[in-house]
């Protein structure tokens, strides 16, 4: 078994990933302060910073969505159930006995089947929950003008925004841990910084 280096993450993608990581960590930090978990900035400042962070991330996403569609990279998120069972088996058993990784990364398939499902879930479920509830928060003063005041209550907007936040926290913990589950402990992280991933070759 030898190791091969392939170019997986292009420059914009890497910039997008790390800018998004910093923004999301900052949003979690300020968001859970607003939620009442601890005190760092003080409530009012935390709210203002959280709002700035949110618009920053939205701006970043406009570019990211544009990039995904113009490059065709969105296809990387088309879900597949193929080899999902093999992936689960690998994380549950194989990884402890140095079994070969069941998925071979290529430039055209940079995510393993579990990643595809996880990221798709992030884009299609968690993101809409957090963004729509967040916008309802931001534009609370306009609910009456938009005729939404009869359909929405602050309590339930808060509920869904908090639900989204906890799902992101969960995603974050597992995501950060799984960056260490590549060919070597740091190979995934190196790939996200340099673009070059080490993959096993028969």
């Amino acid at each position, binding site marked *: 078994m030898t190791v091969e280096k392939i170019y997986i993450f292009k420059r914009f993608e890497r910039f997008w990933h790390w800018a998004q990581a910093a923004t999301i960590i900052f949003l979690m930090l300020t968001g859970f302060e607003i939620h009442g978990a601890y005190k760092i900035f003080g409530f009012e400042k935390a709210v203002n910073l959280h709002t700035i962070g949110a618009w920053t991330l939205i701006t970043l996403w406009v570019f990211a969505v544009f990039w995904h569609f113009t490059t065709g990279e969105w296809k990387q998120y088309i879900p597949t159930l193929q080899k999902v069972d093999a992936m689960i088996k690998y994380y549950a058993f194989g990884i402890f006995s140095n079994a070969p990784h069941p998925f071979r990364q290529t430039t055209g398939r940079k995510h393993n089947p579990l990643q595809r499902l996880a990221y798709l879930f992030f884009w299609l479920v968690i993101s809409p929950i957090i963004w729509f509830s967040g916008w309802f928060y931001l534009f609370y003063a306009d609910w009456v003008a938009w005729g939404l005041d009869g359909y929405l209550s602050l309590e339930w907007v808060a509920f869904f925004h908090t639900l989204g936040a*906890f799902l992101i926290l969960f995603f974050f913990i597992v995501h950060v841990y799984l960056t260490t589950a590549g060919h070597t402990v740091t190979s995934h992280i190196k790939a996200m910084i340099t673009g070059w991933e080490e993959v096993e070759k028969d």
Partner: protein
Amino acid sequence: MSWDWSTAGKLTPEGKPVIKKDEDGHVVYHGKKGDFTYGANIPPEYVWFNGKVKYTLLDDKINVAEGFTPINHFEGGPDDGESRIWPVKVFRGMQPYDPVNQTLVIPHTAGKDDTAFWTNFNWEKAITSGMQSVGAPFSGKVDFIKTEMMWPITHMVAPAGIYMPGRDANKLLNWAGWALALLALIGVLIHGALRIVTRNK
């Protein structure tokens, strides 16, 4: 949370003020003061407040047609950019006024003289001497009006969540959310530890 002065003055056959208490021992009627009502665990009323309070002063004209007279009034509104929503206790009263001059009055209440209300139980005498003491005009006629006074509350307001319909759901979510995060953390730590332990296999 109200005080009705208009019923004051009832005396026992011995000439002592009548006193009634509720089952908790609180005075609900006193011959010197009138009827009281009490409240506990009451949600406050909320008003827009810009920090300025306007009081009805002794020489201000009262508009009886309004239904009640504000002893004070919190100024502000949603559109001035500086007001906040403030919790207040609204104290409702019934008190003597001068129906001819249309003003509030100052009664002389306590004292061992023949004009003090608590000695003679005569409003006309008590108000005549009270108004004289500050040089204010008094027609000699007495009637009663409803009044309201706002007390700003800066403590003893229960957390906002208490009256939220979504409170239980949000409490449960908070608990479940942290539990999920903690389980994820424990899970990855165990998984990582196992990988370290088995790394030579």
